[in-house]
């Protein structure tokens, strides 16, 4: 009996019936649910300490500022950043990646330069670089996948050259269920004088991240996929790089001194935090980190791996069900994309919903990857720490129900 067996009780939203069935929430790659301690923390903050930060002398402003900065230090320790100042609060991963693109990218990318991403990127780590490359007449290159759906490191060695200025790759795919070798990729980028950015949206909630060990220059992730409120995220950046960068947005909070003619900007990280910040979000993120560290990130990863070991072979055993990404559970994270032959994933997702199983269906904001896989869309189940074998069984049974309903495999698919 592991402590993970009781975790479901911490998440009040899971205690409900959907379409008359027990809810099996398996859309965690889209957003996770929040445990009671995080929900309580938000209410506590708004009931007791709410004030705007860094700009008041009164007691509530001091409390709010102290808690906001305490959250920054929790994030620092969570990802093992050298300094708290290397933690910039953002709206989420997309915001963090756009921040780098429109500051560092704008300044350092020139005509003929290369930007390298992988074909497995979410649009948020693809479209900004694509648009920057178009604007600057730079070249956007893609690291391809192996036949098994893993990142092709041989291809990475060919694509990253001395012309490469930025390499930005996802730490964990939101479709294929792969974890990428970020440390090797960062080293490869550095050998060629490029900076390396990790998209941690699908990794930070599930695995121990050590930005110093990975030696990434930037690392972006979202709070909401790790049980925090929506609208809070983190951009980690090496101090020297952040210090050298121009601000992202201008306004209040990010200045040191303003006259009619000029402005002196605030120090890192405040120069990147213009306007009123999502203080409650940051404090909620801090609480979510407490919750994760209370369990231990190694245990979280181990729990999810056990679920994958359990469910992946069951899914692979269903006739006419195609599972994407590595077929070996040891190489697959808790993000599992699949399709029933001859049935559009939207129809499949509706059928699963009728059985209480919440999955995503669509292109997962990764259209180039979908084109590569030769599909327009897939269904996707994604597991988190509060999921258990009952959820896995419910998924497998619901897929079998859908297969029966749509007569997959019994009549000729059109």
């Amino acid at each position, binding site marked *: 009996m592991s402590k993970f067996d009781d975790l479901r009780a911490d998440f009040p939203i899971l205690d409900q019936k959907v*379409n*008359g*069935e027990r809810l099996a929430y398996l859309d965690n790659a889209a957003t996770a649910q929040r445990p009671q301690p995080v929900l309580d923390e938000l209410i506590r903050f708004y009931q007791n300490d709410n004030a705007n930060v860094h700009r008041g002398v009164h007691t509530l402003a001091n409390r709010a500022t102290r808690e906001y900065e305490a959250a920054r230090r929790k994030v620092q320790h969570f990802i093992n950043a050298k300094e708290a100042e290397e933690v910039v609060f953002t709206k989420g991963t997309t915001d963090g990646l756009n921040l780098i693109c429109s500051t560092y990218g704008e300044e350092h990318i020139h005509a003929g330069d290369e930007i390298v991403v992988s074909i497995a990127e979410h649009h948020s780590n693809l479209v900004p670089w694509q648009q920057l490359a178009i604007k600057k007449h730079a070249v956007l290159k893609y690291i391809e996948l192996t036949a098994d759906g893993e990142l092709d490191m041989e291809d990475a060695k060919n694509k990253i050259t001395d012309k490469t200025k930025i390499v930005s790759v996802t730490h964990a795919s939101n479709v294929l269920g792969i974890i990428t070798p970020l440390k090797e990729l960062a080293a490869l980028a550095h050998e060629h004088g490029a900076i390396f950015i990790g998209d941690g949206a699908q990794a930070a909630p599930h695995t121990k991240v050590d930005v110093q060990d990975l030696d990434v220059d930037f690392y972006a992730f979202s709070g909401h996929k790790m049980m925090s409120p929506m609208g809070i995220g983190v951009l980690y950046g090496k101090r020297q790089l952040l210090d050298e960068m121009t601000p992202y947005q201008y306004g209040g909070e990010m200045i040191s001194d303003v006259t009619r003619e000029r402005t002196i900007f605030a120090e890192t990280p405040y120069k990147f935090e213009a306007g009123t910040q999502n203080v409650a979000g940051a404090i909620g993120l801090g609480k979510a980190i407490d919750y994760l560290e209370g369990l231990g990130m190694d245990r979280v990863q181990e729990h999810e791996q056990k679920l994958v070991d359990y469910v992946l072979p069951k899914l692979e055993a269903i006739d006419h069900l195609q599972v994407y990404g590595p077929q070996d559970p040891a190489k697959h994270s808790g993000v599992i994309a699949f399709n029933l032959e001859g*049935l*559009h*994933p*939207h*129809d499949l997702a*509706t*059928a699963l*919903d*009728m*059985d*209480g199983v919440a999955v995503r*269906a*669509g*292109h997962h904001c990764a*259209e180039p990857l*979908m084109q590569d896989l030769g599909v*327009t*869309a897939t269904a996707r189940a994604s597991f988190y720490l509060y999921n258990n074998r009952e959820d896995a069984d419910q998924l497998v049974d619901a897929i079998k*129900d*859908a297969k*029966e*309903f*749509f007569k997959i495999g019994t009549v000729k698919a*059109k």
Partner: protein
Amino acid sequence: MALSKLNNLYRAVILDAAQNPHHKGEIKGATNKMTLHNPTCGDTVNLQLKVDSGGKIADVGFTGDGCTISQASASMMSDAVLGKSREEALEMAKIFSDEAIGKKHSADELAKLGDAQALTSIMQFPARIKCATLSWWALTRALEKDGSDDSASSQTKE
């Protein structure tokens, strides 16, 4: 089994229309074309109409890729508007789109949709409304943009 509820959505007529769609394919001499995408799921409807000199829809065809609902809807819509005047077709599209956003019509008006009214059952499945309305929006856009060839993404209308 909760899947019995699926019968409300996927009636036999709908499954049949999706598996054996009518008017699937390109037509000759198209006068009005419209391609619409549903960016949330990747469904595409590429609609072609041939409107004759009398303003009647003389031929209709569609290509594209999508779920059971979007394919069935395109098939049923094509059946329903063939031989209708431009104005009649636009009225039908209006009735269907209205139903999708909760505006009710009388049984007489719904009858104008023919078999396509079966898909107004989509109302019980809010997440799937766009799948059913995509081809009707394409019809409206194709007829309103007289003779032109255009492409657009559908907007969320819920």
